[in-house]
């Protein structure tokens, strides 16, 4: 437009003004067009020609000037660039002549400018003007946000938030920070509140990073920090509660201990909260972070296929500890002992994963370390187009498949399961079974050995629904025998074997559609699907659920429920009497146990100590009343008893039919037989004393046994709420198993 105006302005006055045929007037075109047309027709042809000539010459002139200026500018820029490289070169040489000659001319950036903002309701981090974190969502993202940058490239390698207002999150933060390789750039910023459960270990770690304000962080303070992970060391003690990980593994994960390396602080800002009810002022930290050379940022491992994988992984992501250690990296290939006569060597393993790459890393390590594992049979199915889980999969050289989500929440998980199972049987068309695992499970060293010894049952016994590695009732104080198996009337999940025919013929065709917001596992437990079939489980679980942050879990529940479960760590356990788990044999065994058992004195109050005699190696039986199949009120009351012999705390309500968990040793197992379904197979028990008096009665049996000596109240005082809502006599974690859809 400017150019056009330059051309037309020299003409003075509206009357003489003749538009060039090439250049249309802009602003006033509409208003004046009629007038101009008329005027145009009146002007004589010569004037028009002259005007055109002048216009064209002027246009040419301007173009030439602009072009010449451009050429000159470019020349100057080039000559400047040519003068520049001298100091740049020196700098490079001082750094060890790393930059390739190609890059010298263009002047590589050696400094990152980093902005970190901390406030009550918003945090953000910008690196070189690019926002890498921005969180102003309401009621989420509270706590300390941590970002790890590659010290040579400035790439974001990890992004985490630790809600250190809540308990144990600081432990997770310590664990994470210790996993970060030395030399990395660390950025921390607080949103809302980050100090309430920031304990000493975490503060000491922050101090070791050189932070002044971090260790002194107070209630509702704002804090922004940029530092460098120092030394090759870690601080603090590994949380003792990480189950399933031995000392060696913790060490591998970076818990080597050792001297504290203080890293240099690159910038820090802090604002104290003036009062309990208010927040510190927002702080904005702007700082320059000098980049180090690529040489420093990378390790020099021997050039092997494995190390190439390791290198790809470690130059991209952070927070995986010693797998990326330069000096002594933890192995990424495991060669567990092969399993003699491995019946599950050719059974595909589907690992169902979301976006929890650290969990997946831990899970795959334990899976690949299990005896008899065949890595080529493993496929990791990632729900979503996430990169980092895929990086973890590639690190271990496994097959990964991403599933672009098509639904929301529970239905999404459910659709992901369906796609994963279908894909598994497509990829392994010969397979008769598939092992289904989740990303937040530790796998016992004898997981495959356990399956190898029991999988024939699934082939030979139609009354079986699955084999599961998890015993819901396998608490520390109830599970004893690694060689013992049970049948249960449910589908525990958490590491299980699915029969292809069951999936292809029954489940897949009627799998819940995306619009039905059902949990796949709840659906699988519905009577329409399970159809009275049972699952085989071990007494001591072969899987351990370590995940806390998931769709259906909260930390409190996890602690109350999963932490108290036993997990087998003994390799090569020989399972006992596996064939006695087949339906007929099992029923015979139950009959035998019952007929040999001594019936407890039902006239006694179950709360009395003497209700259960303190003898060893003796089986007792008690009867409870159930009004209908799913009436577990009596059972629940009984299970809550503080009587440590009957069912010690935490109270695990079990299915009436042979749920393990109420066995105890010593002195010996108790069979709890329900009146409604006294025995498997529908046959009535040929036992004495099966009458009203001999049955522990009704929901409020405590009050309903008036003869009882002990005060019912004394029983109840020790009661704790059950760990979760119960259905079908089974203790189910809230959310995870949720409510039975048909109830």
């Amino acid at each position, binding site marked *: 437009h400017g150019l056009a105006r330059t051309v037309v302005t020299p003409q003075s006055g509206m009357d003489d003004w003749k538009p060039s045929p090439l250049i249309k007037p802009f602003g006033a075109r509409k208003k004046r067009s009629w007038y101009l047309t008329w005027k145009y027709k009146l002007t004589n042809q010569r004037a028009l020609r002259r005007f055109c000539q002048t216009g064209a010459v002027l246009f040419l002139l301007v173009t030439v000037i602009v072009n010449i200026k451009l050429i000159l500018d470019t020349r100057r820029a080039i000559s400047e660039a040519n003068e520049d490289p001298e100091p740049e070169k020196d700098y490079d040489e001082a750094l060890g002549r790393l930059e390739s000659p190609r890059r010298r001319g263009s002047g590589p950036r050696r400094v990152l400018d980093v902005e970190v903002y901390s406030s009550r309701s918003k945090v953000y981090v910008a690196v070189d003007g690019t926002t890498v974190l921005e969180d102003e969502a309401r009621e989420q993202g509270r706590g300390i946000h941590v970002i790890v940058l590659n010290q040579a490239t400035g790439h974001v390698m990890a992004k985490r938030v630790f809600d250190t207002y809540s308990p144990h999150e600081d432990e997770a933060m310590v664990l994470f920070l210790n996993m970060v390789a030395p030399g990395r750039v660390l950025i921390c910023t607080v949103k809302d509140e980050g100090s309430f459960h920031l304990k000493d270990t975490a503060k000491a770690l922050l101090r070791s990073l050189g932070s002044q304000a971090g260790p002194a962080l107070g209630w509702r303070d704002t804090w922004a920090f940029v530092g460098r992970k120092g030394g090759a060391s870690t601080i603090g003690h590994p949380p003792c509660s990480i189950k399933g990980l031995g000392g060696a593994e913790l060490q591998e994960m970076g818990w080597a201990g050792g001297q504290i390396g203080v890293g240099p602080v690159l910038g820090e800002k802090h604002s104290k909260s003036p009062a309990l009810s208010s927040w510190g002022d927002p702080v904005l930290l702007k700082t320059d972070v000098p980049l180090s050379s690529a040489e420093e940022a990378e390790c020099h491992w021997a050039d092997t296929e494995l190390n190439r994988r390791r290198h790809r992984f470690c130059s991209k992501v952070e927070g995986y500890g010693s797998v990326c250690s330069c000096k002594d990296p933890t192995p990424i290939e495991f060669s567990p002992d092969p399993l003699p006569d491995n019946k599950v060597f050719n059974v595909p393993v589907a690992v169902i994963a979301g976006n929890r790459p650290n969990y997946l890393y831990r899970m795959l390590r334990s899976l690949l370390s299990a005896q008899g594992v065949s890595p080529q049979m493993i*496929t990791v199915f990632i729900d979503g187009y996430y990169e980092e889980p895929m990086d973890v999969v590639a690190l271990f050289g496994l097959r990964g498949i991403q*599933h672009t989500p098509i639904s929301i929440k529970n239905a999404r998980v459910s659709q992901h399961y369906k796609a994963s199972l279908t894909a598994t049987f497509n990829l392994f068309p010969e397979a008769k079974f598939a092992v289904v695992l989740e990303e937040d499970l530790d796998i016992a060293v004898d997981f495959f050995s356990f399956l190898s010894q029991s999988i024939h049952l699934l082939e030979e016994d139609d009354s079986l629904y699955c084999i599961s590695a998890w015993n819901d009732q396998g608490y520390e104080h109830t599970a004893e025998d690694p060689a013992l198996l049970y049948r249960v009337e449910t589908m525990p999940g958490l590491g299980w074997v699915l029969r292809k025919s069951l999936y292809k013929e029954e489940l897949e065709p009627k799998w819940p559609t995306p619009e039905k917001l059902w949990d796949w596992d709840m659906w699988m437990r519905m009577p329409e699907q399970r159809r009275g079939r049972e699952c085989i489980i071990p007494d001591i679980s072969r899987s351990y659920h370590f995940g806390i942050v998931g769709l259906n879990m909260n930390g409190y529940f996890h602690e109350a429920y999963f932490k108290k479960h036993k997990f087998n760590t003994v390799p090569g356990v020989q399972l006992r009497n596996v064939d006695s788990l087949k339906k007929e044999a099992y029923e015979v065994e139950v009959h035998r146990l019952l007929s040999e058992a001594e019936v407890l004195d039902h006239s006694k109050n179950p709360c009395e100590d003497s209700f259960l005699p303190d003898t060893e190696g003796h089986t007792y039986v008690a009867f409870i009343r159930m009004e209908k199949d799913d009436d577990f009120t009596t059972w629940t009351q009984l299970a809550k008893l503080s009587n440590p012999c009957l069912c010690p705390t935490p109270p695990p309500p079990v299915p009436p039919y042979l749920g393990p968990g109420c066995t105890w040793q010593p002195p010996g197992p108790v069979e709890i037989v329900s009146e409604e379904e006294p025995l498997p197979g529908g046959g009535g028990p040929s036992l004495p004393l099966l009458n009203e008096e001999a049955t522990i009665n009704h929901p409020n049996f405590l009050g309903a046994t008036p003869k009882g000596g002990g005060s019912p109240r004394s029983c109840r005082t020790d009661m704790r709420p059950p760990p979760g809502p119960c259905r079908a006599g089974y203790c189910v974690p809230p959310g995870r198993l949720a409510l039975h859809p048909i109830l």
Partner: protein
Amino acid sequence: MLLMAPLQNASFSVFQETLLHLHYSITYGRMRSLYSLHKKEGWFRIAENMGFQCLKIESKDPRLDGIDSLSGTEIPLHYICTLASHAVHLVVFHERSGNYLWHGHLRLKGHIDRKFVPFRKLQFGRYPGAFDRPELQQITIDGLEVLIPKDPMHFLEEIPHSRFIECRYKEARAFFQQYLDDNTVEAMAFRKSAKELLQLAAKTLKKLGVRFWLSSGTCLGWYRQCGIIPYSKDVDLGIFIQDYKSDIISAFQDAGLPLKHKFGKVEDSLELSFQGKDDVKLDIFFFYEETDHMWNGGTQAKTGKKFKYLFPKFTLCWTEFVDMKVRVPCETIEYIEANYGKTWKVPVRTWDWKRSPHNVQPNGVWPVSEWDEVIQLY
């Protein structure tokens, strides 16, 4: 599977290992693309160190195509290694549902040197292919132990007819977005029975050595929705009349499928119908070839009227359908459009075999004297 041009023995040993590995893989079902090859990637490097130049063709895994929105690691399809004027072509066979082996198309992507080998002369890779899973035997050639198919002739005969086409999974998904899938109990029951009937028919015809393909509604179901149309009520197959064998009827009867009706005769308009379980019918149409088209016949039992259904000429390809390797016309769209017209994408629930097909023509009436022969109802 390894195919090679003459090669010096010294360099052969590298590939012998590969060969053994691959056959081992096929035999034990271990050639699960990624992992084992990654582990065995060693041979690739060794070959290159020996002076071979190697080319690797990878592609996405077709076994995941049938499932909504899955994307996985690519699988290896072909390796070609050259040394001097010799070339070794390694074709990776993957297991597919339906007990068959599949190899991929050797597609030359942009950056590949088109003169690396004379690609047109390669026996495998022009199209994807499907083969019966061969049993293998170990033999010794020039002192080297290798595995070859137990029945090499059968395998070699399969090669020229091995072209495979994939179902159009993406279009099928789009179809189901528009016309929701029927998941009623009845629909599921029909699909199950139809699948079992098709499996039984395929087994029976294979035993007889009779080629067949999916025809009419069954073919439309495959092409349009990669599945069985639940309201189609029968399973339709096509057979070339020159493949007709007199013991077809007895073979089906032995398999538990009694003859329901027989129309026409071998010379003209033959059509067989067998009664499957659960009221699902198996219709077999015999196709007659003319110079410029193919046709099959129809007969109205009541009136003895004859009908003719015309198709443009077609060849046969393998595909995968309800966990089976079956044939379909390679020129499927022409076949379907001849039969159902351009609107084949729209489901039609009421169908009159005498009027609805796009390609039906009246074809006279059977002489009454022949009725006993050409109209047999059971």
